[in-house]
């Protein structure tokens, strides 16, 4: 599964490959999914990644950013990235449009440990754009349905109009995923929960803690409180995985920016088993 995209990517970790924007799916205000295709058809065929991994996307003259893969899109033969406009690079990327050119290197980092979770109930917990790196794990739950027990998504966003991939929730539910969403701010027409994500964990029924695993991605404070709720519900620290974010210039453990204690978030993460990173994650300003 960990096949590298091409030998060029292995030999010179700095060198990116040319890709183009095949289509763009608008998602939310300031958020869109970019369906990227390698210009080298052979490479597009060979490319593989594991759910939770990320790529470095490069716009010449503008900069390079870390973005998670949000899907392997078999229908369109593209590699999908869901991106929120945050600053310089993401804004320029949003202006490229269909046919726009950029470069990609990757995939990098660790992945959600689906292989180790056979037979477990899988609880996916996301906040905001943090749902993007979990989406390939959701897809894996569908394609390997028999492998896992009960699968659940607990998702929180600021308001109902900021719920990512909302069009898919019914489809996901039909395919066996229990979807619960909550929002911080009520808007007319919303009949779901109001409140923060950890509340969904507090209320989750049924729950068999001993047989569950939790994959978490969102802002660090949200993850901290969610973990606290999960521990209160009886999960152990080694049943929880979190995906972290840090400044990354190289993504290959050479630039030093992403360090969190002994960990290089780019290659030892971004997905960490909670008990292995907790000690450092909970130190303010480390």
């Amino acid at each position, binding site marked *: 599964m960990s096949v590298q995209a091409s030998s060029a990517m292995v*030999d*010179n*970790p*700095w*060198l*990116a*490959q*040319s890709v183009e924007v095949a289509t763009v799916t608008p998602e939310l205000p300031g958020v869109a999914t970019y369906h990227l295709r390698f*210009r080298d058809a052979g490479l597009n065929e060979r490319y593989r990644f594991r759910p939770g991994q990320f790529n470095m996307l*490069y716009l*010449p*003259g*503008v*900069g*390079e950013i870390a973005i998670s893969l949000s899907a392997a899109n078999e229908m369109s033969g593209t590699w999908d990235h869901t991106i929120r406009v*945050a*600053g310089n690079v993401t804004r320029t990327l949003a202006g490229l449009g269909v046919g726009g*050119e950029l*470069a990609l290197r990757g995939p990098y980092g660790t992945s959600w440990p689906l292989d180790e979770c056979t037979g477990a109930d899988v609880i996916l917990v996301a906040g905001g754009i943090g749902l993007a790196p979990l989406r390939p794990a959701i897809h894996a739950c569908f394609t390997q349905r028999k492998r896992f027990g009960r699968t659940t998504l607990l998702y929180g966003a600021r308001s109902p109009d900021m719920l990512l991939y909302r069009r898919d929730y019914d489809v996901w539910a039909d395919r066996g995923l229990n979807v619960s969403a909550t929002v911080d701010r009520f808007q007319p027409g919303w009949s779901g929960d109001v409140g923060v994500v950890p509340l969904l964990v507090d209320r989750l029924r049924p729950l068999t803690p001993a047989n569950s695993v939790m994959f978490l991605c969102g802002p660090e404070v949200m993850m901290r409180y969610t973990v606290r709720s999960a521990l209160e519900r009886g999960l152990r620290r080694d049943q929880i995985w979190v995906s972290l*974010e*840090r*400044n990354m*210039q*190289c993504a*290959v*453990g*050479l*630039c*030093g*920016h992403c*360090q969190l*204690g*002994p960990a*290089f978030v780019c*290659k030892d993460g971004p997905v960490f088993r909670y008990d292995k990173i907790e000690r450092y994650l909970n*130190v303010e*300003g*480390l």
Partner: protein
Amino acid sequence: MKAVARPRNSPQSETLLLAKQDFQAFLDQLWQGGYRVVGPTIAQQAIVYDEIRRVEDLPRGWTDEQSGGQYRLTRRDDEAWFGFVVGPHSPKRYFFPPQVAVTQADRTSNGWQFSEVPDQEPPYALLGVRACELAAIAVQDRTFINEQYVDPIYRRRRERALIVAVNCTQAASTCFCTSMNTGPRCTQGFDLALTELPDSFTVEVGSERGADVLSSLPVTRAAPGSLLAAEAARQQAVDQITKGLDTKDIRDLLLSNLEHPRWDEVATRCLSCTNCTMVCPTCFCSSVKEVSDLTGDHVQREREWDTCFNWDFSYMNGGIVRNQIRSRYRQWLTHKLASWIDQFGVSGCVGCGRCITWCPVAIDLTEEVAAIRENPA
């Protein structure tokens, strides 16, 4: 790939002697052999690394006086060529250059083309490398060559280089290589290792490459008298070392004291000026920036040294992780002396003392560790 980190010497047991009057011929031989020779020379009132073409380029008759926050060149009362300790530069700048293009992009009729930037540097002959610097090179080999991803620029330059070490015959008040087991004697990782005597150098050969360079020079077998004199000269450096760092369980000590009040205290003194990281021979952090030509059709990605003391080093859209000097000093010290061990299996500190000398407010990492050790949480 792993070969480089391994000591390259298959030491030739016999120690040789090279007369100082033949040293110019040695330099000429290196240049003619295609090497770019770099070594110690005087510039801007310090001994720095630069090209060495003639023996006159060496800091003959000069020495450096170093202490916390102090560096001064003074005349020696002899004409020793390598009679100093270490300056603000280290060999790091040649294998991991302060600024270098890593990739480039060209706009063509067929869209952007992305490619490597061929590294044109001729092989280096590094002259005057100290034992602590040999150790620092071995530390950086682990970062840039021995991990999952290899830095191609570092590897190419490293593998082609010839290393001519020169043993220390004196030490500064800032040196603590004996605590870090890195010196002062050069024991591995060199092609040639010299010890300076008044009229000659004893030469230990550490590799085939080193032996080849000597083959056409009038070297002789060192007589017992020269060997004894060289031993005595080296012993002076050992005897002069006063500083120490207690490294016992240092990783656990620091990582279990991440909230120690000493971090607040040192933060009131540290200016976050970045000097310590710029002079450190093992620090490897960098940032990449875009450099376009006027048309915007040719863009290079340039990698520059960066440091955890820069306020935006940990920038993420939405906040800076290490917003306080306390966080940044803690990162530097705990990385160097503790988490480096998790990452690369060795300490990130080789005891060269540069960060002590070049700190404008004389912060001394050995004292910071001692303060935490005295009063652990």
